């Protein structure tokens, strides 16, 4: 899985592409943890290029959100496809995460 990475002012953006499942959840987790260990405190995960997420992927998001909450940081998600939005709705993840329509809206809210 290709994972894009960029910094937009104070917000660190990760952009996983394709599928986020058990095949690559560990490598995505490493990228999230590396960002947190670098001291990033505002993390945006841009789902624009993501087609699919499984429970393994959801667990990584939860772990990242928990770590950021404990350190006083923030996490947000943006650009969920309708199918991924449905997964978030069914799994109750919309009650945990702040979700924005697109990256611009997310950055405006987090900035």
């Amino acid at each position: 899985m290709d994972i894009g990475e960029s910094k937009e002012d104070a917000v660190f953006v990760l952009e996983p592409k394709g599928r986020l499942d058990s095949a690559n959840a560990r490598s995505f987790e490493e990228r999230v943890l590396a960002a947190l260990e670098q001291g990033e405190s505002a993390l945006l995960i841009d789902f624009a290029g993501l087609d699919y997420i499984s429970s393994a992927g959801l667990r990584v998001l939860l772990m990242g959100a928990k770590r950021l909450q404990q350190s006083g940081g923030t996490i947000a998600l943006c650009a969920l496809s309708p199918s991924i939005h449905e997964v978030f709705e069914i799994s109750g993840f919309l009650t945990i995460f702040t979700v924005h329509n697109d990256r611009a809206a997310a950055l405006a809210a987090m900035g």
Partner: protein
Amino acid sequence: MLSFAEEMMLLLLDDQDGSFLPIPEWSMQCALAGAVLMDLALADRIDTDVNSLMLVDKKPTGDPLLDPTLERIAAAAEVRGARYWVENTAAYADEIREGALARLVEAGVLNREEDRFLWVFRSRRYPTIDGRAEREVKLRIMGVLLSDEIPDPRDIVIICLCDSCGIFNELLSSRELERARGRIDQVRKLDLIGQAVAKSVWEIQASLAMAAHPVY
């Protein structure tokens, strides 16, 4: 670290006398099935989405509580949903329960005592010898229920399983349960296998209720 099946056993036993709490058998079976499936998921052997439970790696975990279920999933001819596997695994709940209890006895957490009822019927009790593990599980649960913190995956699992088999009625007072209900409802949705366990339990309860009060 205890498996989820072992943690569930500790929560399903009465602290005072080591007997099983009055939990419906089907609920307990589904919860144990869910416990095994969730341990397999956290061991990266299976993965789930809203429709399917997928085999990720058929390599045995080395845990006899988990590997028989992993073998059945690996041998399946087609991919099925999490709910199918909850109900399939529930058929083996007696083995899972006995295995988990035997392990807890061997670890010195529980003692096993045989009783006779009316001189004929045997019953087993499992009084606690070392209550630290159970206290730790209960503290984890209460820590999540009484805060707004994001729970970690293990805490979500145990809360899903407890709610599915109605243990919270035993763990919490009715007032505490009323206060925690919203949080339990939020947390239990966060795991798709947990949702499958809850649906299986609910369906059986609904069909029993229909049988008791048929609509003509």
